[in-house]
C-alpha cells in the first residue's frame, strides 16, 4: 500500500474557504468555555448547597430518646416505671384506600369503634393521631395488618403498679412524659434524662451503615428512691378506706412520719385516683389534702400552748384551774366544754380537752409569745418538702389578735394548718423538744432539726399526751402491746362564714411507742356522717390501726404489758 503523506492528501487538494475552519475552532472554544463556566459555578458558587443536598440524600440524624427514671420506694419496690409504647397515627389521604375489613381489624385492635376512626381521618390535615400509648404487642399486630396510611411512632408509657394506693404521692406524667403532679412533677428534672442523637449514613433500603460523627449518647433519667414504705402506705390506705366507709365520711387523710429521720413513711388521701387510668383524674380526687388543704386544727393544738405556758413558767403541772360547770363567759363570748370538769390541772385539761382551761392558760400568755412559738413550730410557713402546692396555712400577725382570738388560738381555732404541718410539729414531743425537717426522699444523712422546747418540757408533755390517749382519754387510740400518746381534735367546719353544727373534721395526732418514739401518725377524717363525730371516736381508731400495723411491720418490740393467749409447747422433735 502506498503511503499518502498527510500534507499531500487528495482531500486537501481542493482549497476550502478559510472561514469554515475558523468557525469550527470558535464553536469548539465556545463549548469549552461553557463547560468551564458551569464547572466553576458548581464547584465555586453553589458547592455548599449541593453538598447539603447530597448529604440529605444519604445522611440522617436519629434522635436517641432517654428513658425516664424509675420511682422506687424505700425498700426498692417499683412505684413508677416507663416501658416503650407506640403512638399510632394516620395520613388521612392514604387511609381512604384501606378496605373495610382492614378498618374493622384496626378498630378492634385499637379498641375504638370504626365510626370514631372514620371521624378522625375525615380531615384536611395530613397527620392525625389515632391512638397514643398503645402497647408494643398491639403495635406489632397493627403493623402486620398493613393498613395503608397507618404508621407508628415510638413513645414511652408510664406504669404505676400500686395504682390508687400511691396516687397522691407519686402523681403522674402527661402524654409527653413530663411530670404533672406529685413526685413526678417535683422531681421532673431528676427523672427526665437528656435525649441524645447520632448522625448516620443510610443505604438505599434505609439501613444504617455507619456513623458520620461521634454519637451523643442519651442520658437516662435518674432513679428516685422515696422515703415512702409501700407496706405502711397500704396499711394507712386500708385503714382510711375502712373508716370512710364505716363513717360515711366525705374525705380522709393520714400521714406517717419517722421520728428519727423525718422521712415521710406513708401519706394517703381519700378519695384518690389511679394514675394508670386517666378517667379517674377528677379535681376532687386529685387533691392531696394532707399537704395542700388547710383546716382549723382544733384541740390538737392544745399541747403546744400548754407546753409554752409550762416552758415560760407561767403554770406548773400542779396549777389548778377552775373550769366551772362547762360554760364560761369570756370577752363577750361563751366558751363551752363538752362536759363539766370542775377544778383541774393542765394534765387533765389536755386529757379532757377543756377549752375553758386553755382559755385560762392563754390569759397568762402574751400574743407575741404564742405567735413566736407557733412560728417556730412551722405554722404559717409552707413545709420545705418540695411537693407542689404545699400550703403554708394561716397564722395572723400577733399585733392584730384580739383577746378572744388569743384564747381561741390557744385551743386551735382562728388559725389554719395542714395535716403535714401538725404531724411535723408533733415531732417536738416525740423527739425531746426539737422539730425535725421532713423529707419525701430517702435520707442518707442525719436530718436537721430546730429546738423548740426544752427536753424537760417535751418529756412532761409526752406523759400528759400518753394519759390523753389512755383509758380515761381517747381510749380508742390504744394499741395492744404498745404505749401510745396523742391528742384528738374535733373542729367544727366553717360553712358560709359560720361554724357549722353538723359538719366536723375529726382528727388525731400522736406517736408510738412512748418509751422510744418511732413514728408519728396524723389522721384527719372530714365530715363523718354516721355515728359519733368526735375525734376520739372517729379518728382515734384509725390511728390505732395504723400504729399497730406499722409498728408490727417495722418490727418494733412491744413496750406495754399484755396477756398472751398462746403458750409455747416444748418442741416434740427438732428440725
Amino acid at each position, binding site marked *: 500500500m502506498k503511503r499518502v503523506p498527510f500534507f499531500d492528501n487528495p482531500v486537501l487538494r481542493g482549497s476550502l474557504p478559510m472561514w469554515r475552519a475558523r468557525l469550527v475552532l470558535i464553536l469548539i472554544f465556545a463549548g469549552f468555555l461553557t463547560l468551564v463556566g458551569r464547572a466553576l459555578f458548581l464547584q465555586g458558587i453553589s458547592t455548599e448547597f449541593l453538598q447539603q443536598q447530597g448529604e440529605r440524600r444519604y445522611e440522617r440524624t436519629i434522635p436517641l430518646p432517654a428513658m425516664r427514671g*424509675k420511682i422506687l420506694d424505700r425498700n426498692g*419496690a*417499683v*412505684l413508677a*416505671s*416507663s*416501658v*416503650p409504647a407506640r403512638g399510632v397515627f394516620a395520613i388521612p389521604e392514604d387511609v381512604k384506600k384501606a378496605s373495610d375489613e382492614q378498618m374493622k381489624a384496626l378498630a378492634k385492635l385499637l379498641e375504638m369503634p370504626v365510626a370514631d376512626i372514620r371521624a378522625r381521618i375525615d380531615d384536611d390535615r395530613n397527620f392525625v393521631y389515632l391512638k397514643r400509648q398503645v402497647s408494643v404487642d398491639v403495635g406489632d399486630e397493627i403493623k402486620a395488618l398493613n393498613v395503608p396510611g397507618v404508621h407508628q411512632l415510638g413513645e414511652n408509657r408510664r*406504669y404505676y*403498679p*400500686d*395504682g390508687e*394506693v400511691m396516687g397522691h404521692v407519686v402523681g403522674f406524667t402527661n402524654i409527653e412524659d413530663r411530670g404533672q403532679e406529685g413526685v413526678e412533677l417535683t422531681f421532673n428534672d431528676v427523672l427526665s434524662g437528656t435525649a441524645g442523637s447520632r448522625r448516620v449514613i443510610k443505604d438505599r433500603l434505609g439501613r*444504617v*451503615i*455507619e*456513623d458520620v460523627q461521634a454519637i451523643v449518647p442519651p442520658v437516662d433519667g435518674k432513679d428516685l428512691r422515696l422515703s415512702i414504705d*409501700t*407496706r405502711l*402506705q*397500704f396499711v394507712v390506705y*386500708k385503714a382510711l378506706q375502712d373508716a370512710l366507709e364505716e363513717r360515711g365520711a366525705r374525705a380522709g387523710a393520714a400521714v406517717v412520719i419517722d421520728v428519727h429521720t423525718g422521712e415521710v413513711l406513708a401519706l394517703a388521701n381519700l378519695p384518690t385516683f389511679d394514675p394508670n387510668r386517666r378517667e379517674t383524674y377528677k379535681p376532687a380526687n386529685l387533691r392531696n389534702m394532707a399537704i395542700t388543704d388547710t383546716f382549723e386544727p382544733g384541740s390538737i393544738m392544745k399541747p403546744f400552748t400548754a407546753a409554752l405556758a409550762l416552758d415560760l413558767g407561767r403554770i406548773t403541772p400542779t396549777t389548778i384551774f377552775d373550769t366551772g360547770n362547762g360554760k364560761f363567759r369570756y370577752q363577750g363570748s361563751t366558751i363551752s366544754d363538752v362536759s363539766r370538769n370542775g377544778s383541774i390541772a393542765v394534765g387533765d385539761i389536755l386529757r379532757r380537752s377543756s377549752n375553758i382551761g386553755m382559755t385560762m392558760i392563754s390569759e397568762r400568755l402574751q400574743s407575741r409569745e404564742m405567735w413566736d412559738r407557733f412560728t417556730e413550730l412551722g405554722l404559717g410557713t409552707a413545709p420545705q418538702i418540695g411537693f407542689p402546692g404545699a400550703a403554708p396555712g394561716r397564722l395572723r400577725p400577733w399585733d392584730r389578735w384580739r383577746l378572744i382570738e388569743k384564747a381561741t388560738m390557744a385551743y386551735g381555732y382562728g388559725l389554719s394548718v395542714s395535716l403535714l404541718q401538725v404531724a411535723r410539729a408533733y415531732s417536738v414531743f416525740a423527739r425531746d423538744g426539737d422539730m425535725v425537717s421532713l423529707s419525701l426522699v430517702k435520707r442518707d444523712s442525719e436530718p436537721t432539726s430546730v429546738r423548740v422546747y426544752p427536753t424537760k418540757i417535751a418529756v412532761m408533755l409526752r406523759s400528759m399526751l400518753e394519759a390523753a390517749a389512755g383509758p380515761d382519754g381517747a381510749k380508742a387510740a390504744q394499741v*395492744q*402491746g*404498745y404505749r401510745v400518746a396523742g391528742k384528738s381534735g374535733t373542729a367544727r367546719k366553717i360553712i358560709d362564714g359560720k361554724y357549722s353544727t353538723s359538719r366536723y373534721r375529726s382528727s388525731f395526732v400522736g406517736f408510738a411507742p412512748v418509751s422510744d418514739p418511732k413514728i408519728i401518725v396524723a389522721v384527719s377524717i372530714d365530715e363523718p356522717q354516721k355515728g359519733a363525730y368526735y375525734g376520739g371516736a372517729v379518728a382515734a381508731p384509725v390511728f390505732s390501726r395504723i400504729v*399497730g*400495723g406499722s409498728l*408490727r411491720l417495722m418490727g418494733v*418490740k*412491744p413496750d406495754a404489758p*399484755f*396477756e*398472751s*393467749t*398462746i403458750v*409455747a409447747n416444748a418442741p416434740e422433735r427438732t428440725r
Partner: protein
Amino acid sequence: MGRLSVIVAILLMLSAISLVTARYQSRQLFVESERVQAQTRDLETGWRRLQLDRAEYARNSRVDEAASGELGMLGIVPDRTLYLNQPRGNTAGGAQ
C-alpha cells in the same frame, strides 16, 4: 527502573484490595455492634417490664386480698405472738 515500577504497581494493588476488605469488615462489625446494641435495649425493656409485672403481682392490695380472702388469714396481734428473747450477739442464727 522498570522493575521498580512493577513492584510499586503490585504494592498499590495490594493496598487497594486491603482497603476494600478493611472497609467491608468495618461495615460487618458495625452491623454486628448495632445488632448487639438493639439486643441490649430489648433486654433492658424486657427487664423493666418484668420488674413491673413483679410489682403488679406483689401489690399489697392484691396480697392482702389473697391472704384474707382466699386463704382466710388473720393479721397478727401481739397477744397471739410469742416474743423470744435472744441473747445478744447471737443474731445470725435466728432468722430463717
